[in-house]
């Protein structure tokens, strides 16, 4: 029977051309949007975790309240003790202490006076401690634009944009000027050994990276860290596990009278990321629903036109003694086959578009210049296994739903009127 129906669909293209085209277009757009959105979301999560939030993050309570001001005077002290306790309580997490700090980078002329200068955001990470995995986590080697990575103390990496703004080349000296943890004025000269491109507008504007232990000395933060980031060993964020760890950790310090007691946050609990991710997921759900609805309307209309065109065919089949229920059932089967063909074609097209956007991406660096969250400068789609079936939901459902509505007309056909219409 199905073979017979497929033959009918293929031979009588007027039956299938418009519905298959509509479904193909709709499904390809759904697949593309789904791949694109999941690409953006996973990039945001990935970039945010690596550069800013970790999978979990520990700060002191007052630091967390004012974290946008980079208040290192409120930073974690007794870092070693805290790290030891975290490592023994949560061995599945890799801990990475970091310090973020503001200040100016100043390039001198021959007389030792200011030639070029600019405000920057310092990021101190463990560059020389291999167990911290920070170099690979931040993808420094991959994002290196000029020069090399720091190999010893008092070497500094700059974002490529920042280095160009300061007219600074690898091998040249640059002086950091800022404040220590307690506010003392701090001057320190570094050798700029290389430039990197983070691929995040927020950081590419004016970020510099120094070694964590250099920063501890520079900012008078012996055994201190602004933030302690935790990453799951498999590098994949697990919200349930992260929430469980966070709840357990925070329970320990809930009743603490220490004003500077530590507090842990999950990735989703920071920078409104949770709300943004939930919103994006809801948006995707709403998008699929709207597509199903809109395509159903189109296909209903197509079905109605087809029904009118096939009025004679239905009439003859009824006159030959086929029951209305059988005609309707076969019509539904036909719609499932058409839906499946359209969905397959749409999925192939959608995945191809996604692949293109995965490889090429769309540059949004101009629009994210002033973004306050870590957003990639180039947004890309991600081709994932889910794209192979996500389009079938709207593709099949809309075709079946549209045909079901249009096909109701079969039951309204009156035999007496039918014979008259067919001039039997």
């Amino acid at each position, binding site marked *: 029977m199905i073979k017979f129906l497929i033959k009918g669909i293929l031979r009588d293209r007027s039956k299938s051309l418009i519905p298959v085209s509509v479904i193909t277009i709709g499904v390809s757009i759904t697949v593309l949007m789904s791949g694109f959105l999941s690409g953006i979301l996973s990039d945001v999560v990935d970039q945010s975790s690596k550069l800013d939030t970790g999978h979990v993050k520990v700060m002191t309570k*007052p630091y967390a309240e*004012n974290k946008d001001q980079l208040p290192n*005077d*409120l930073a974690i002290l007794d870092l070693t003790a805290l790290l030891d306790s975290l490592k023994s309580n949560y061995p599945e997490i890799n801990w990475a202490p970091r310090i973020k700090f503001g200040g*100016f980078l*100043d390039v*001198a002329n021959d007389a*030792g*006076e*200011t030639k070029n*200068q600019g*405000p920057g955001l310092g990021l101190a990470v463990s560059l020389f401690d291999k167990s911290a995995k920070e170099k690979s986590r931040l993808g420094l080697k991959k994002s290196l634009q000029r020069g090399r990575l720091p190999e010893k103390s008092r070497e500094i990496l700059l974002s490529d944009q920042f280095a160009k703004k300061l007219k600074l080349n690898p091998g040249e000296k640059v*002086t950091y*000027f800022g*404040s*220590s943890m*307690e*506010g*003392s*004025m701090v*001057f*320190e*000269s570094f050798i700029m050994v290389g430039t990197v491109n983070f691929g995040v507008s927020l950081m590419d504007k004016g970020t510099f990276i120094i070694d964590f232990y250099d920063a501890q000395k520079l900012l*008078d933060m012996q055994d201190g860290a602004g933030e302690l980031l935790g990453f799951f060993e498999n590098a994949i964020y697990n919200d349930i596990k992260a929430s469980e760890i966070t709840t357990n950790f925070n329970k320990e310090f809930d009743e603490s009278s220490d004003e*500077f007691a530590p507090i842990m946050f999950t990735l989703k609990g920071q920078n409104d990321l949770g709300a943004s991710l939930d919103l994006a997921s809801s948006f995707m759900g709403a998008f699929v629903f709207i597509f199903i609805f809109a395509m159903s309307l189109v296909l209903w209309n197509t079905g109605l036109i087809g029904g009118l065109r096939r009025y004679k065919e239905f009439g003859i089949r009824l006159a030959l003694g086929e029951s209305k229920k059988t005609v309707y059932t076969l019509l539904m089967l036909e719609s499932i086959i058409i839906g499946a063909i359209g969905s397959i074609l749409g999925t192939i097209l959608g995945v191809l578009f996604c692949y293109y956007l995965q490889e090429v991406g769309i540059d949004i660096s101009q629009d994210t210049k002033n973004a306050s969250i870590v957003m990639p400068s180039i947004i890309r789609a991600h081709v994932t296994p889910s794209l192979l079936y996500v389009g079938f939901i709207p593709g099949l459902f809309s075709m079946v739903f549209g045909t079901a509505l249009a096909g109701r007309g079969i039951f309204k056909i009156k035999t007496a009127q039918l014979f008259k219409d067919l001039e039997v």
Partner: protein
Amino acid sequence: MNYNFYVILISLISFNFYSQERSSPEALAVIEKVDLNMVSKSQILTSEMIVHGKRKSRTIRSKGYSVGQDKNFTEYLSPEREKGMKMLKLDDRLWIYSPSTDRTIQLSGHLLRQSLMGSDLSYEDMMEEKKLSLIYSVNIIGEELINNRKAWKMELIAKVSNVSYYKRLSWIDKEKYVPLKEDLFAKSGELLKTTLFTDIKKINGRWYPTKINYKDVLKTGQGTDFVILEIAFDKSIPDNYFSKSILKK
């Protein structure tokens, strides 16, 4: 009816502009007397800045030399981390010399409004000494008791553009003609800092507050105390104190 309404409205608006841009003679006389106390031809000042941090307080001692409104040279005496640092301000440019790196760094423009050594003072607050009567239009808007001293409450609105604070509310001691308290505002109307002037002493014939608490309202904490240990007015200061060569000496 409508005509009268518009006449009254325009008069009120004009009066408002007038009152904002012009000082009342009485208020101007008060603020000129304040300037006589607070501003001198030159100053040599040894001071301590006590920065009350969230975890601990730091005391920074410095010696400053200033001539007129635009020349200031400060050398930091302690603690060890700051010792030997020097700052030279000429007009709207500031040079900072760090002995540890043997570098002279220049700051200008909005950078001068940054916090000085983590304190509640900006570089401008520390090194600026301008006659209020010249840069603000002033009006007396009330009388209040501040620290049991009778004071005029005065509103100062900037009449020039390059001022650190567009508006000040100053409480001026009615007897000694020194400020007792000030609220400093941005042009947007946002309160930026509050200052409290205490330990007012008569030095070389002029009343002068020797302890000032600056509180940046955007920061948490108790603010920064600026304590004058020694001050000399109108002393002759050699010109080389205000040349860049002094920084590396």
